[in-house]
């Protein structure tokens, strides 16, 4: 079978193949682009075979890309079919950040971006933007306590000012080092209220869930984009999908607790602190 270009896009694509590549560096650049294309097309057919069979979008870059002088190299852009696959991925399999999706319109996603979906309270203004329920849990988490005691000057005062009306005082909350975590988990298991999810919520704050969607924290370089990435492959997508399902369950449980705390902060905060005190290590 040979291609008889039926559209200008296909014709331009064919003409582009006539370019001579002699230097290894240019050959490697070309192959990187082709690898990305074929990886995405293979994964599209594997994960969304029915959508693939009915898709009408083009495998080739639209012609107007050629005339756009702002485009440095049009080969470095995804074709509409590849973009369709990326959309299916973040719609059905796992999330992608707004920035990653936006940048995919301009240049190729060479790897799968992993966006932090946990509670990123350590970023700038992170604490201020936390929901009240999360703020209340901060002194109970190891990282939160460290932040309030040693990093943030007058962290305790800030906490007291936030919870003044709820009669919660920072100095009366036991340090997490004094808590018997095994005992805390056992006590939580006996509960029927969302308070049973306290250990899980604290793991989220401490980034200790062992789930790559929840423990990654965007550093300054990648802030707003994504924390890390994995190569485009079946195993990566399967892993990310499986981990995202697990992460969703963890997030759902933790937010049940947050909402429960916030529905009656004064009463529920007291129940929380009573439970915390009961989990103290016995000397």
């Amino acid at each position, binding site marked *: 079978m*040979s291609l008889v270009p039926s559209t200008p896009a296909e014709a331009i694509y064919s003409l582009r193949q*006539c370019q001579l590549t002699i230097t290894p560096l240019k050959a490697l650049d070309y*192959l990187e682009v082709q690898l990305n294309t074929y990886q995405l097309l293979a994964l599209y057919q594997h994960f969304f075979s029915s959508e693939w069979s009915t898709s009408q979008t083009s495998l080739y870059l639209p012609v107007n890309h050629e005339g756009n002088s702002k485009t440095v190299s049009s080969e470095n852009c995804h074709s509409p079919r590849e973009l369709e696959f990326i959309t299916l991925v973040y719609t059905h399999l796992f999330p992608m950040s707004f920035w990653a999706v936006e940048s995919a319109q301009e240049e190729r996603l060479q790897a799968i971006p992993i966006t932090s979906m946990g509670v990123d309270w350590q970023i700038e203004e992170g604490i201020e933007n936390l929901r009240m329920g999360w703020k209340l849990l901060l002194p109970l988490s190891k990282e939160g306590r460290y932040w309030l005691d040693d990093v943030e000057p007058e962290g305790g005062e800030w906490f007291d000012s936030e919870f003044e009306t709820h009669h919660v005082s920072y100095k009366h909350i036991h340090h997490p080092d004094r808590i018997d975590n095994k005992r805390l988990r056992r006590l939580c298991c006996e509960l029927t209220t969302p308070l049973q999810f306290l250990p899980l919520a604290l793991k989220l704050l401490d980034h200790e869930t062992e789930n790559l969607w929840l423990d990654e924290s965007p550093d300054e370089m990648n802030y707003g984009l994504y924390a890390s990435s994995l190569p485009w492959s079946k195993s990566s997508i399967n892993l990310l999908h499986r981990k995202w399902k697990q992460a969703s369950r963890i997030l759902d449980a933790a937010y049940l607790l947050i909402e429960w705390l916030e529905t009656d902060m004064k009463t529920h905060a007291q129940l929380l602190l009573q439970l915390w005190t009961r989990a103290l290590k016995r000397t």
Partner: protein
Amino acid sequence: MTTSTTNKRLVIYEGQQHWLPDAIALDDQLLRDAFTPLCAELANAEIERKEGEPIRIIKKPGRKGISPLESLIAAPEEVNPAVQMCYQLRQHQLMNGIDWRNAEQWAAQIEEAIAAGTTFTQAVNHSLKALTSCKPASSSIPEGF
């Protein structure tokens, strides 16, 4: 064969005969210094002296494994696998467009070519580095020329 005349001695370097004054020929270092303008490598040359025979100047061979010739011989002779794959893929796509039916196979082949091409480029760069860092050396002249 006469190897000395009044105040002069016969010195052979790469098959060529040179008559040098005794004052130079009898001293190894002066002899080396006299020949160094011909070839920089002779600064460390070996001087062979045998009774009744001419003095011979023998160039010391370079360290094994880093001579430019060895690097050239060791360099791969085939085309860089990345360039080869690039040509093959362009040819295929020129005729068939994007071969989505065999996308998985192409991806695997391209990945392999990228890995092989990168290794190949590193090997070439290594040889090139060895070539550019070596000192210039004269070629050997067969005896009689």
